[in-house]
């Protein structure tokens, strides 16, 4: 149970530098916390009001007190042990939420103070930084990590200045992993963690090309994205060929190459009739026919797409059907 302690005016509850695990609640009276600003050396005074906790950070973190707590008016203070405070706070979550807000502001503030002190040369452009991470892992033969960071780079910066080098890192990392050459994961082992897929030529990775394609498509670079999607299609039956066809179809549609799009996707439908991507494929077929002023065909494809569409795609297809008068 927390202990209620009475303090007379001008008495000290604790001094800066003291080490103890008590958390205090000012029940009645008035307190001041005095500390020294790290940057200016000036004294800072903070006043504690009734109902407020103090001494929380140093108690929870087991650090010496950063401030002195002085009684300004006769006070009654409840002294919790850390365990008692934790038990109490967990039954009053709003107390923790309020402290989280206060502490997060303090953390933001100190971060900004540090940033303002550091040499601006230390700031690295994220494009360069992410590349340096991939390169560093690759150089230290952490191929899995290198490959994964490289893929993230390509997703975030498909037109970044290090794209070619990162692609090389990604391909080399995958080759190295496939051949079992890995200096290891951080446990220091010398083996890969899971068997690599061997479909498709090693070093010509469909996942990598697909990632690049998606990044380019996301930027509206349809022609370049199409080339990447097409390179995946050319690899034949891989787990991502469906996505590549949908992506390629979208690129052709966006470039108003409707006939080519219909031809491409018709080929896909006949080759992979049970594909999980069929709803998207049928939707793009419908869109192309709509643009080619063939609303009946468009409606037919939209209706078919609707029978296969999942919850995310279905509303879109319904809208398209309505736009056709369906």
């Amino acid at each position, binding site marked *: 149970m927390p202990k209620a302690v009475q303090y007379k005016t001008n008495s000290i509850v604790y001094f800066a530098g003291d080490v103890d695990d008590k958390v205090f609640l000012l029940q009645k009276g008035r307190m001041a916390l005095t500390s020294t600003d790290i940057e200016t050396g000036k004294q800072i005074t903070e006043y504690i009001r009734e109902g407020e906790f103090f001494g929380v950070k140093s108690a929870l973190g087991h650090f010496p007190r950063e401030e002195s707590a002085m009684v300004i008016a006769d006070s009654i203070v409840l002294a919790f042990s850390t365990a008692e405070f934790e038990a109490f706070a967990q039954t009053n979550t709003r107390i923790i939420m309020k402290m989280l807000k206060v502490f997060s502001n303090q953390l933001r503030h100190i*971060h900004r103070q540090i940033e303002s002190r*550091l040499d601006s040369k230390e700031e690295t452009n994220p494009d360069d930084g992410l590349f340096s991470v991939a390169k560093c892992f690759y150089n230290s033969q952490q191929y899995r990590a290198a490959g*994964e960071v490289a893929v993230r780079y390509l997703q975030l910066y498909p037109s970044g200045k290090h794209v070619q080098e990162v692609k090389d890192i990604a391909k080399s990392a995958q080759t190295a992993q496939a051949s079992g050459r890995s200096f290891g994961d951080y446990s220091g082992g010398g083996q890969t963690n899971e068997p690599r897929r061997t479909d498709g030529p090693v070093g010509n990775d469909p996942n990598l090309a697909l990632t690049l394609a998606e990044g380019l498509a996301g930027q509206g670079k349809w022609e370049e994205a199409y080339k990447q999607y097409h390179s995946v299609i050319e690899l034949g039956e891989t787990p991502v060929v469906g996505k590549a066809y949908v992506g390629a179809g979208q690129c052709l549609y966006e470039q108003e190459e409707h006939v080519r799009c219909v031809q491409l996707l018709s080929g896909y439908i006949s080759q992979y009739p049970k594909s999980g991507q069929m709803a998207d494929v049928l939707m793009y077929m419908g869109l192309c026919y709509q643009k080619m002023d063939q609303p009946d065909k468009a409606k037919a494809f939209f209706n078919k797409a609707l029978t296969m569409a999942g919850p995310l795609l279905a509303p879109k297809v319904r809208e398209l059907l309505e736009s056709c008068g369906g």
Partner: protein
Amino acid sequence: MSDVFAAFSRFAKTFPKGSVIFSEFESGDCFYLIQSGRVQLIKIVNGFEKNLDILQPSEIFGEMAILENSPRSATAIAYDDVKALEFNKANFEVLMMGNPAIAMKLLKTFVKRIYAQKRRFMILTVPDKMARVGDVFLMLDETQPNIDKTTDMRTFSISMEEIARWAGLPVETVEDEMHRFIDQGKMEVYDDRIVVKNITELSRYVGARRSKEA
């Protein structure tokens, strides 16, 4: 904590050993609570990986993502097969209100971070460069576990580049100041370690030169 993991299993994500949870310099808005396995935090310093920490189950990481929109300050890699709960800004408050155990854990994480950052800031405010370099060693000493307190001699496995990063000084400047420490017989520098001959004396030296003015 096990009931928390059960209640929030829908937020669970698995990361195979060696996989990258997030990379330094990536943007991110998720933080993680480790359910099982260990996570290694790595920072790239001058082209080399520096191990920052290895986190254990029930520890939180990535929490700065919910405070500000800055790129990640380190890479988090699954040291073992890792299972972790992934939370973001959107579900943060709901999670905290419904889970005082996690909220308290996050509170303690913030406390640790605040103290570490304040200590780092203290180094940066030392105007005298030699004393600032000395303060880096004092800070490292404060955070080293299992120190043999029967002696004032301390050994640190740290590079000049890392000292420079902590001190916010160019590496060349740090090397110059380290030479002064060596010339004065206060330190010895080897390929793989730096020895501080007397940590108490170093503390007095730094304290005397720590000015109250910026």
